[in-house]
């Protein structure tokens, strides 16, 4: 018989009280675990989506451009040495150390073409990759499928008087306009878009591309690393990170995380308050019992240790159950919030953190009630003497 026996038997034989004590803290822990694990899963999805939403690395031909200015008058640039990128060289990108972080490589060839008397900018793309990277493109009609399909930007279609399904003559070849892009507000509105081999043929640039957009998954490696690695395997081109894109994405994700942590913090505070009020109630219910302990010769320290021991076991139980409850709730909620590939991550650090949180909150919230219990006047507590 020792304090541990008393504490254990109190919890064991008063199961309804134990359940009540555990419930308050369990709810708080489960909520925090749900919030944090949902945040982690949704952040991963957001990172994945953002990394696939548009490019964040640009590969362009290395040109020695001379910008001529004199007396405030700019005379334009003179390209001393300009050439396109060799398409077959792009295979080297798959050999870099972080090749698994590359979501998409989207080569493009650009050049001017004549449609009757009018001129237009033709862009040749890999349709599957390009439409995947440019998710904001919405096509009225159908995207590119065959060698003789064309998609036009909204402004280009309007300017050239093109309509869906209409035949389009370019370079002696007849193409079908299968789709018209909805207005994007960018230079894409001015484009005619064809399959890469078709455009290379029309522009007389066989096996060449004008620029390459790369979508890199920046979640666990800085985009600067990717830029350096690609530069090493393609020394003849210029590789640059689109800093604005990268920084905007990271900022959005950081704000998302900060918001979640803020909400989790509030939930923890409320949980602590619930535990405090519950423990004070439990101590007040045990006033007579504590009076007996004191009358039998328990010191104030013994009473505090007894209450804190019970609080630690209750907190431990609430932490473990709260973690599994929270993960279970996440499993149920995640498919409702995630748009694609909801992926629940079992993070051992979160488990340890949840239990530690329950212990810290439970014991901190129980300390004042324990102190209060130890200071009870035994005669008042017993009311019989």
């Amino acid at each position: 018989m020792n304090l541990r026996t008393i504490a254990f038997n109190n919890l064991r034989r008063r199961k309804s009280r134990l359940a009540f004590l555990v419930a308050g803290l369990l709810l708080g822990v489960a909520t925090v675990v749900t919030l944090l694990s949902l945040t982690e899963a949704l952040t991963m999805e957001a990172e994945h989506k953002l990394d696939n939403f548009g490019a964040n690395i640009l590969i362009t031909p290395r040109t020695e451009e001379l910008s001529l200015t004199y007396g405030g008058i700019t005379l334009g640039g003179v390209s001393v040495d300009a050439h396109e990128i060799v398409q077959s060289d792009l295979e080297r990108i798959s050999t870099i150390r972080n090749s698994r972080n590359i979501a998409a490589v989207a080569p493009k060839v650009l050049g001017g073409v004549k449609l009757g008397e009018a001129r237009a900018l033709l862009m040749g793309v890999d349709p599957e990759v390009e439409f995947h990277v440019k998710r904001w493109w919405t096509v009225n009609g159908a995207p590119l499928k065959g060698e003789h399909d064309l998609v036009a930007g909204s402004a280009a279609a309007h300017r050239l008087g093109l309509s869906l399904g209409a035949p389009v003559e370019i370079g002696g070849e007849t193409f079908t306009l299968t789709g018209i892009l909805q207005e994007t507000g960018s230079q894409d509105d001015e484009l005619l878009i064809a399959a890469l081999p078709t455009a290379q043929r029309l522009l007389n640039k066989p096996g060449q591309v004008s620029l390459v957009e790369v979508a890199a998954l920046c979640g666990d490696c800085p985009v600067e690393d990717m830029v350096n690695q690609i530069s090493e395997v393609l020394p003849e081109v210029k590789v640059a990170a689109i800093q604005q894109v990268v920084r905007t994405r990271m900022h959005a994700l950081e704000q998302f995380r900060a918001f979640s942590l803020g909400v989790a913090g509030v939930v923890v505070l409320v949980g602590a308050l619930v535990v405090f009020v519950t423990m004070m109630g439990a101590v007040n219910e045990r006033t007579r019992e504590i009076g007996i302990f004191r009358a039998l010769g328990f010191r104030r320290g013994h009473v505090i240790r007894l209450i804190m021991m019970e609080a630690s076991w209750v907190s431990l139980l609430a932490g473990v159950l709260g973690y599994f409850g929270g993960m279970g709730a996440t499993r149920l909620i995640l498919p409702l919030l995630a748009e694609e590939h909801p992926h629940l991550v079992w993070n051992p650090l979160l488990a340890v953190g949840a239990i530690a949180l329950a212990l810290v909150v439970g014991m901190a919230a129980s300390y004042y009630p324990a102190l209060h219990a130890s200071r009870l006047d035994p005669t008042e507590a017993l009311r019989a003497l």
Partner: protein
Amino acid sequence: MAFIEISSLTKRYQGDADCVEALRGVDINVEEGSFLGVMGPSGSGKSTLLAILGGLCHPTAGSVKVDGIDLYALSGEKRADFRREYLGFVFQSFNLIPYLSALENVMLPLAVKAMPTAEKRERAAQVLARVGLSARAAHLPNQLSGGEQERVAIARALVNNPPLILADEPTGSLDTATAGEIMELLQQLHREGQTILMVTHNSENRAYFDCTLMLRDGRVESSDCRRPSLAAAS
């Protein structure tokens, strides 16, 4: 030197409207091995006397010495130690812990002692046997009768071999027959040398006491001794 020396004991309770004097300058000396009964009407101060003697209630004035120890010269925590080592309490409402078995309730005063659990268990079992409840050791209080619960309370009071038992109306909640059994048990303990101070308002219990102290309005009205165990009561 008497075993218990109570000198000029006064206890005042300050209320909102007035001041209540529960004890007014009480002097009592009790010899070791006595069975002393404290009687009186409600409000006479007998429970207050017991509380002060038990180190649970600070007197307004006066001193209490048990076995030469000035009780209220000790710190609060030292008084708790004193209660554990010197006193055995028997309460009117038994005051057993509802989630501990009879044996565990008896072991309660030993819970904060540095002693092997097996030794604690053995000592408690012996005391439980002494009060005739070995067969009920594993039962919870709500599975025991009133008399059995009182016996467990007495066993709990004895487990630490305290020099002094303080009993506050131990038969107050019991029927006549069971009350008689409890008084017989206390008398048996007294015959074995135990010093017992008991508060009661049941005049039938007077037959068991060496001395009966009558309190009225916080003062000792009279003392009636069959054996010389009480000295200089006032």
